[in-house]
């Protein structure tokens, strides 16, 4: 059992997400930085479906009542185990009654804490991920609060052993810069933008604002103009309005042409603003580690490039999971 002391700023239980309910308005949720989440599970010898704790900006204080193996990945954090600094991206032995304490996250936005066996909150609709807006999944549908206790599950890889010191090769550890390139497949309703606006979207920097959470990130930068038209029946009068339609996870919209909104894994599943492109699935991890006032450059890529990046990422993760069994 894990006792939550200080809960951190916004700590939620996440796994690989809850596919299959988008048509009900339920987004997939799941770890915003899926690479860091998956690696944390691999390092402690967990199965890929195990749930971890996603920590935002300031992590929690966790006391373990029995022996455990943990690993912390993602945003570079100062973490201490009974006062001793703990390295990231490496499994650690925790003895009964020891306390893991996050002090600050230096670069990046989100860190992940995996515990061998996984965090055993009840599974809802096939996932342990928390969707806070509707109070679904995770720890009672909400972020962790002081006094919560979390059970540890048994989702370990057959053949893996509980041990500390399992680490990720340095070359595979991502760095979280304050200026990042985000790859986007142009399309959806970008025919509504002027050619100049499309050019601006991919050639000028956008700054992450403080309105950035698991549902979406708002970015400030050059306003984008829409082609004037007579509004189709049912769309609404603003040039950025469309008859309400589905929003892909990763889609970018520009209400009234002013601020960009990029939807992440807790996306609202639809609405009435023209979408102008979609962040490739691999780069959802990258934007999830950006924070205000980091700078984003959008780079247009093809569907082929998006799929290739996804396939590469998957083979890297599979290799990491195989390595821990060696």
């Amino acid at each position, binding site marked *: 059992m894990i006792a939550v002391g200080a809960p951190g700023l916004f700590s939620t239980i996440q796994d690989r997400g809850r*596919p*299959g*309910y*988008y*048509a*009900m*308005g*339920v987004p997939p949720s799941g770890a915003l930085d899926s690479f860091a989440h998956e690696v944390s599970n691999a390092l402690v010898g967990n199965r890929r479906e195990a749930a971890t704790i996603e920590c935002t900006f300031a992590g929690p204080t966790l006391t373990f009542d029995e022996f455990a193996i943990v690993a912390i990945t993602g945003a570079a954090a100062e973490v201490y185990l009974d006062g001793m600094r703990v390295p990231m991206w490496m499994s650690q032995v925790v003895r009964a009654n020891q306390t893991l304490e996050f002090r600050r996250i230096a670069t990046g936005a989100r860190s992940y804490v995996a515990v061998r066996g996984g965090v055993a909150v009840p599974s809802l609709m096939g996932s342990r991920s928390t969707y806070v*807006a*509707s*109070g*679904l999944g995770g720890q009672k*549908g909400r972020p962790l609060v002081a006094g919560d206790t979390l059970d540890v599950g048994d989702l370990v890889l057959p053949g893996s052993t509980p041990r500390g010191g399992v680490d990720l090769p340095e070359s595979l550890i991502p760095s979280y810069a304050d200026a990042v390139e985000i790859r*986007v*497949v142009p*399309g*959806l*309703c970008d*025919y509504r933008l002027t050619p100049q606006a499309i050019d601006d979207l991919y050639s000028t920097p956008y700054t992450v604002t403080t309105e950035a959470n698991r549902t979406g990130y708002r970015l400030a930068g050059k306003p984008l103009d829409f082609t004037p038209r007579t509004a*189709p*029946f*049912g*769309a*609404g*009068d603003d040039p950025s309005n*469309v*008859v*309400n*339609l*589905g929003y*892909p*996870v*990763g*889609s970018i919209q520009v209400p009234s042409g002013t601020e960009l909104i990029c939807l992440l894994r807790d996306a*609202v*599943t*639809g*609405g*009435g603003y023209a*979408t102008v492109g*979609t*962040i*490739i*699935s691999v780069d959802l991890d990258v934007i999830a580690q950006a924070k205000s006032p980091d700078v984003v450059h959008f780079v247009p890529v093809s*569907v082929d490039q*998006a*799929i290739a*990046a*996804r*396939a590469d990422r*998957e083979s890297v993760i599979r290799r990491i999971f195989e390595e821990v069994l060696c």
Partner: protein
Amino acid sequence: MSRLSDGSRFSFGADEFVFVELTEEMSLEQTLRVIAITTDLRGAAVTGVTDICPAHVSYMLRLDPLVIDPRQLVEHLEHAHDRCGQTSDLVIRSRLIELPVFYDDPWTRETVMRFRDRHQSSDLNDLEYCAAENGFSDVQGLIDAHSGAPFIATFIGFMPGNAESYQLVPRESQLQAPKYLRPRTDTPARALGHGGAFTTIYPVRGAGGFQLLGRSAVPVFDPHHRLDDFEAKIVLPRAGDIFKYRPIGMEEYWEIRAQVKEGRYRYTMHETSFDLAGFKADPRLHNQRLLEVLG
């Protein structure tokens, strides 16, 4: 711009999504065709497709790109669009659900007046503003029009439980309202909102941009399955459901709230079908027959 042979536009939402738009403007014919196509695609059960999401005049598929290349789906879309041709004589299976609504209730009245700085009118409340916008001399005229004819759920989305619905009246009689200039940061749970030509009941408390006309006494979202009608699901609405909003007053509102809180409320719900040709031929007669079962 890529199009299917029937002219529908499609586009890839990076590696995980395919977006298909039949038309840019709202029409019930296209909504029913979207329902037919997405039902057909669900039946085809294409491996790798995880979500099939109909909207008003468009739909979206989510897929696992390591199982199926999104480009390979285009062929499946062509077949589905072929099988569900352009026709106005579509009939879909549906449910008729009566929802008790307290129009002009004190909670939404209080909420909307806190946000006049984001609204088109500085002094009228949403109901008064919408009544004037739609040419009614008083709010009762709008309430009568809104509750007089049923609505059909044409887009389930945004958040769980949300169902944007379109009134079963000819286009020239549609109630229309702009969305807030800037969205509110607060909306009471179960508030009844209208924006564009669509009505919804807000599933939970939160932000929103629709004009608020009243408050439903009954939930559309029940994550803990407290009510029997949510036994199998956490949300009430399904695409194609037909909603009849029944005006209630304060006294009945509290009676129903008590039943909901005690877990004994049952929705007035009947299996039915929606026949587009019949509706278009004579909307008034069609609705009269549809609603007969409610007595």
